[in-house]
């Protein structure tokens, strides 16, 4: 062996899943555990999961560091752990390889938004989303993005690639690595050589008590028969199953054993006569427990799902396969086996043989190791996120600022006043509107002029940013296509450019304020946070609407008239007392609150909480939309 020269440190793998020991036991978890243990000489492992129990957040399970993020219960089979995506994002940089155990939409959210691109990703596809089919249209795009970004996708059986439409799209990077099992653990205790019980009638099933496992079908199958059924496992279906057993009067023959330690489960596998896996949906992709039963030399009854289940234990050789959800056929199959000890012995031997040869733990670990190694060796940025990511945000902003600065200089070319022409326009508008409003209301019109001028300046800024942004990308097509500048540069350019113009315009309210109002600075400082929010909103609006209007050209006139309507139905030129406070449209209009959060502190020193919360809601919606927009802008070159 040649010692490797460069990698004294083992690369580290972060396993990403929703739950881990000791909060739950199950097939997926034992797969993660086996990978961690089997590859521990080559890869160091970490696990990031959610936990309802609220114990310590960092624990060690079987020598593996497990970090648990607090979850507040399950919503639609998903842990409600709002902190998980953020924590995942922060952990990504600490590892060399990411192993996502899908389905786990909470993690898809992180990858779909383009975070964590700096590390290679391997997806272990454990199952498709079956239970909440209505949510599929929302989750599938996320999953697709994750899969697109992944270096490799690992499934337990090749049949899953053919039968899962989403995986078929990425068939070229799917690898089938069957789960493995250490058969030696299931060796029978020495004295008991004859492992088939001639008068056997003990039927064993294992699994979490959840609907897709189909244990209710097994209970029904036991009705009117003579065999005994022991079901190992715990879960939310327990009460329903107990009720069913009671209703059918099967308490003496059907027992729910609850959770059982692994060593005891191995013993149970050893004394059972028939192992049944009655799963009813394709959420069961492989059935690790049936492999355990096979290792223990038990004949299997399984169901004909479109997954690996009937491929692992094959009908007529290691198993009898029955249609899912059919208690009569299930009972018939169990009875066939119970009545025929010779067949049970033959099937059991075939099963053990298959488990030992086809599904060895060593082959599983070797297969995973190979894929991990290849993925970890893949060039770091698998797919370039965008030029913005390649250039970096500071440079992007600098370029946008330079372009905006040159735009403003352009206004001064061949013109002495430059953008101040617009300020003069603004001054005239303020004068005219001010005199008209002075006639409409009895309040002192002159005293209101500075506020009117400031409001108009701010409105002009917002309005021009949005309108400018709707055409910005088309106008900069050559810079985007020929110089490969990131499209977001030009949307930022609009904001910066209009900000520079707004600073020119701001001379009007500034002069009016200096002339007309007694100097007082407290209000101005109190208005700053609100004003910052206003600018942030403008930036977000510019980004989102600018990109949308480039993609959908018919939006521009809609945006124009929408802005005009919003302007007219907001108290920008009208003052609130002129309008009697009560207009619902005005209260719903975001512009009203967007202006209120800085105008009210300026005028009165305090601001209504409702306005603040309204604006914060708008900001957070815009923030999400902006993140999505920036991701979408990768395709902007196609639109122009």
């Amino acid at each position, binding site marked *: 062996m040649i010692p490797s020269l460069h990698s004294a440190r083992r690369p580290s793998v972060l396993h990403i899943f929703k739950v881990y020991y000791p909060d739950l036991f199950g097939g997926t978890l034992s797969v993660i555990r086996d990978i961690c243990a089997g590859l521990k000489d080559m890869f160091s492992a970490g696990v990031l999961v959610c936990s309802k129990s609220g114990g310590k957040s960092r624990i060690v399970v079987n020598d593996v560091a497990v970090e648990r993020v607090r979850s507040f219960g399950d919503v639609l089979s998903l842990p409600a752990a709002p902190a998980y995506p953020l924590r995942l994002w922060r952990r990504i940089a600490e590892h060399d390889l990411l192993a996502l155990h899908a389905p786990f939409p909470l993690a898809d959210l992180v990858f779909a938004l383009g975070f964590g691109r700096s590390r290679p990703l391997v997806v272990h596809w454990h199952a498709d989303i079956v239970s909440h089919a209505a949510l599929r249209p929302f989750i599938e795009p996320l999953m697709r993005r994750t899969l*697109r970004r992944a270096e490799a996708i690992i499934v337990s059986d090749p049949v899953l690639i053919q039968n899962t439409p989403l995986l078929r799209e990425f068939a*070229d990077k799917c690898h089938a690595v069957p789960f493995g099992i250490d058969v030696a653990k299931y060796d029978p205790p020495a004295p008991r050589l004859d492992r088939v019980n001639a008068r056997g009638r003990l039927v064993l099933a294992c699994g979490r008590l959840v609907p897709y496992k189909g244990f209710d079908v097994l209970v029904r199958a036991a009705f009117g028969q003579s065999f005994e059924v022991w079901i190992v496992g715990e879960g939310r279906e327990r009460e329903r199953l107990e009720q069913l057993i009671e209703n059918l009067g099967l308490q003496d023959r059907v027992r729910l054993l609850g959770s059982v330690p692994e060593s005891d489960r191995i013993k149970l596998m050893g004394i059972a006569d028939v192992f049944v896996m009655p799963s009813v949906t394709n959420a069961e992709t492989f059935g690790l427990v049936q492999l355990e039963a096979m290792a223990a030399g038990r004949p299997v009854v399984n169901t004909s799902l479109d997954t690996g289940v009937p491929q692992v234990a094959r009908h007529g050789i290691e198993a009898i396969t029955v249609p899912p959800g059919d208690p009569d056929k299930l009972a018939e199959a169990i009875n066939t086996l119970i009545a025929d000890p010779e067949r049970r012995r033959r099937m059991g031997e075939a099963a053990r043989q298959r488990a030992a040869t086809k599904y060895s733990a060593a082959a599983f670990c070797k297969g995973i190791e190979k894929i991990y190694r290849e993925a970890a060796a*893949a*060039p*770091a*940025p*698998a*797919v*370039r996120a*965008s*030029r913005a990511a*390649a*250039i970096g945000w500071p*440079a992007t902003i*600098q*370029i946008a600022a*330079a*372009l905006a600065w*040159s735009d403003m*200089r*352009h206004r001064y*070319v*061949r013109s002495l006043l430059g953008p101040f022409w617009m300020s003069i326009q603004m001054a005239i508008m303020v004068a005219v509107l001010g005199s008209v409003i002075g006639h409409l209301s009895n309040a002192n019109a002159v005293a209101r002029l500075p506020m009117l001028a400031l409001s108009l300046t701010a409105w002009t800024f917002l309005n021009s940013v949005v309108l400018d942004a709707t055409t910005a990308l088309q106008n900069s097509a*050559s*810079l*985007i*296509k*020929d*110089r*490969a*500048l990131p499209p977001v540069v030009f949307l930022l350019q609009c904001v910066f450019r209009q900000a520079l113009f707004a600073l020119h315009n701001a001379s009007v309210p500034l002069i009016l304020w200096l002339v007309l109002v007694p100097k007082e600075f407290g209000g101005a400082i109190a208005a700053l946070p609100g004003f910052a929010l206003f600018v942030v909103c403008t930036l977000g609006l510019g980004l989102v609407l600018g990109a*949308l209007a480039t*993609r*959908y*050209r*018919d*939006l521009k006139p809609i945006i124009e008239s929408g802005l005009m309507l919003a302007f007219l139905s907001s108290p920008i030129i009208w003052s609130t007392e002129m309008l009697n406070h009560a207009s619902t449209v005005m209260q719903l209009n975001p512009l009203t609150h967007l202006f209120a959060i800085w105008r009210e502190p300026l005028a009165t020193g305090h601001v209504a909480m409702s306005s603040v919360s309204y604006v914060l809601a708008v900001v957070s919606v815009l923030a999400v939309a902006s993140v999505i927009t920036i991701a979408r802008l*990768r*395709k902007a*070159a*196609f*639109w122009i």
Partner: protein
Amino acid sequence: MASIILRDVCLDYPLYGAYDFSLKRRLLGRLAGASTPTPTIRAIDNISIEASAGARIGLAGPNGSGKSTLLRLIAGVYPASSGHVGITGNIVPLLGLNAGVNMDFVAAENISLLLRISGRKPTPAMIDEIWAFTELEERMQRLPLRMFSSGMLMRVLFATATAFPADILLLDEWLSVVDENFSAKAEQRLLKLVSQAAIVIIASHDHDLLRRTCTSIVHLDRGRIVNTVYPEIHSAYPFELREKRA
């Protein structure tokens, strides 16, 4: 170290017709249940190219064979629909010289803006050096570009675009400056730029040029690689360069 790795890269170029830009159409189509997916054309079909430092790759092929699209994909303008795109090193795409020029500004300002766009902080020394290369009169630096003849404009743009070395240089057609006196000098400068870059990819119809400058020539047709040719005497250009320098 600069490197380009394209592995099984495909690019489906969406062909947006007039109606595909309409949100109303799209929403109505979806409501009616008759939403048709945007037709796409496979502009790049399963292309794998690996290049490390020293590679000079020529892209040849008829119009519409995907040369420019491939360059833009490498530059990061278009995202790949599938496959791997792994690129290290800073890319300078010289796909069009006119981008970002403002004819109303004086030449010096245009130069500094173009430098800023390519991420450099312009200094007066840089601008003077670029100007010296154009061989134009000093006072013309202070004239707006719209007063320049097209030949003079090309000189300024060429001098600016080629002022700094790149790790990865992408050229769509050899940048030719038609002015007779200038073209030899321009050619020499471009050759120098090519020789300094770690990786160069040139798309061109000029086979002789590609044979002279490239270590490998990739022939494209309808987005696919037809074949890859390795010209034998790819070391021709340093000699040529030396001759011209002498």
